C-alpha cells in the first residue's frame, strides 16, 4: 500500500502530464485547421495536372517514343520507395502506420528477388526503418527546421527522384504517405509515381481534340517532372494534415486517460486517508477502554 504522500505526488504528476497533453491537443487542433485548409487548397492543382497529363497521353500516337517518366524503363527490377513521415512523435499511430505499410511492401519486393532502395523524408520514419532496412536507405531528408513545408522542399525531393531515374538507379518509384480523410481517419497510402499511374477518373469520355504547342512529347517532357514534384507536394500536404489530426486524437485520448487515472488515484487516496483516521480512532478508543 503506497503511503499518502506517494499518492499525493502521483496525482500531482499525472495532473501536470494532463496539462501538457491538453495543451498539445489544443496546439494540434489549431495547426490542424490550417494544415487541412492547405491540403484542401492544394488538391485542385494536382488533380488538374493529372487531368492534363491524361489528356496528353490519350493523344500520343506512338507510345513507344513517349517519355520514359511516363511509361517507365520497361523493367521492374529496382524499386525506389520514398517514405514520408513526420519529424516529431507523439502523434498516435501516424508514423508507425506509414512504416508498417512501407515495410510490408519492402518485404514483398525483397521476397520477389528485386532490388530495393529507400529514401526517407522525416526523422521518425528514418528511425523506424533503419533498424530492419537500414542498409537499403540511400538518402534521408528532414525539414524539421522548416515551420511550414512549401513547394520548394517538394521540388528538392522531386528533382532528386528524377535525377536518380535519369541515372537509371531505379525502375519503379512509390510514395508512402498518409492520406487525410478526416480528423480521425487517416489512410496510409502507397502511390506509384514512376511510371505514372494514370487512371481515368471519370468514365465519361471527353473527346476533346486538343491542339498542342509545342509537340505533345515536348510538353510531356516538361510536365512530367513537374508532376512528380506536385505529387510529392500533395503527399506533404496530406501528411501534414494527417499528422496534426492524428496528434489531436492521440492527445485527446491521453488527456482523457489522465483524467481517469486521476479519478482512480483520488479514490485510492481518500480511502487510505480514511483508513488511517479510522485506525487512529480505534487506537484511541481501545487505549481509553483499557484504563
Amino acid at each position, binding site marked *: 500500500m503506497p503511503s499518502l504522500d506517494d499518492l499525493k505526488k502521483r496525482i500531482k504528476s499525472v495532473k501536470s502530464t494532463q496539462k501538457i497533453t491538453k495543451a498539445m491537443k489544443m496546439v494540434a487542433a489549431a495547426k490542424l485547421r490550417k494544415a487541412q485548409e*492547405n491540403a484542401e*487548397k*492544394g488538391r*485542385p*492543382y*494536382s488533380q*488538374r*495536372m493529372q*487531368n*492534363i497529363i491524361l*489528356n*496528353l497521353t490519350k493523344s500520343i500516337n506512338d507510345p513507344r517514343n513517349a517519355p520514359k517518366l511516363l511509361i517507365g524503363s520497361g523493367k521492374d527490377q529496382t524499386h525506389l520507395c520514398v517514405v514520408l513521415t513526420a519529424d516529431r512523435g507523439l502523434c498516435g499511430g501516424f508514423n508507425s502506420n506509414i512504416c508498417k505499410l512501407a515495410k510490408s511492401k519492402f518485404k514483398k519486393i525483397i521476397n520477389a528477388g528485386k532490388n530495393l532502395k529507400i529514401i526517407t523524408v522525416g526523422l521518425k520514419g528514418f528511425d523506424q526503418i533503419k533498424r530492419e532496412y537500414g542498409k537499403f536507405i540511400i538518402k534521408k531528408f528532414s525539414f524539421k527546421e522548416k515551420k511550414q513545408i*512549401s*513547394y520548394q522542399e*517538394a521540388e528538392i525531393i522531386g528533382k532528386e527522384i528524377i535525377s536518380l531515374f535519369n541515372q537509371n538507379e531505379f525502375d519503379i518509384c512509390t510514395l508512402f504517405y498518409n492520406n487525410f480523410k478526416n480528423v480521425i481517419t487517416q489512410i496510409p497510402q502507397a502511390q506509384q509515381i514512376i511510371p505514372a499511374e494514370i487512371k481515368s477518373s471519370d468514365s465519361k469520355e471527353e473527346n*476533346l*481534340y*486538343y*491542339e*498542342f*504547342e*509545342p509537340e505533345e512529347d515536348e*510538353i510531356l517532357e*516538361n*510536365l512530367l517532372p*513537374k508532376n512528380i514534384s*506536385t505529387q510529392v*507536394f*500533395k503527399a506533404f500536404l496530406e501528411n501534414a494534415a494527417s499528422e496534426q489530426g492524428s496528434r489531436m486524437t492521440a492527445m485527446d485520448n491521453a488527456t482523457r486517460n489522465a483524467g481517469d487515472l486521476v479519478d482512480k488515484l483520488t479514490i485510492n487516496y481518500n480511502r487510505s486517508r480514511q483508513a488511517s483516521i479510522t485506525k487512529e480512532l480505534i487506537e484511541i478508543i481501545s487505549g481509553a477502554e483499557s484504563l
Partner: protein
Amino acid sequence: MTPEKFTVEIIAPTGLVLKSNVNEVVIPSYEGEMGILKNHIAIITFLRPGLIKIYNDSEEIFFVEDGTVEFAENTLLILTSTAKKLNEMDKISLNKHIKDAEKKILDEKINDKEKYSLSYKIETLKNINE
C-alpha cells in the same frame, strides 16, 4: 462590341490564385505570346518566363516563370507555382532576381532550353523594373 467573357483560373500548388470572368488573356507561351479570346480552340501548352495579362474592364498582370496552360470549353486553366502579381513585386527582390538569373545564364553547364528561359526571365524582369 465588347468581346464575350470566359473563365480564367490560375492555380498554384498552395491554392487558387485567381478565378474570374474576363475578356481576353495574353499568356507568354513557350513559343511566343498568345492571346486568348472566348471560343479559342482547345489547346495545351506551357509557359516561359513572362507576363500573363488579363484584360477585363481593368487590366491585371502576373509575372510567371513557368507553368502549364490548358484551354478547354471556355475555361483557361493556368497551373503555375510561380505566379506573382506585378504590383506586389518590389524593386529590391527584382534586382536580386535579375542578378541571379544573369549569373546563371553565364554558367556553361546549362542547356539551350534553360538559356532560352533565362533570357526571357531577364528581359521581362528588366522591363518590369523600368
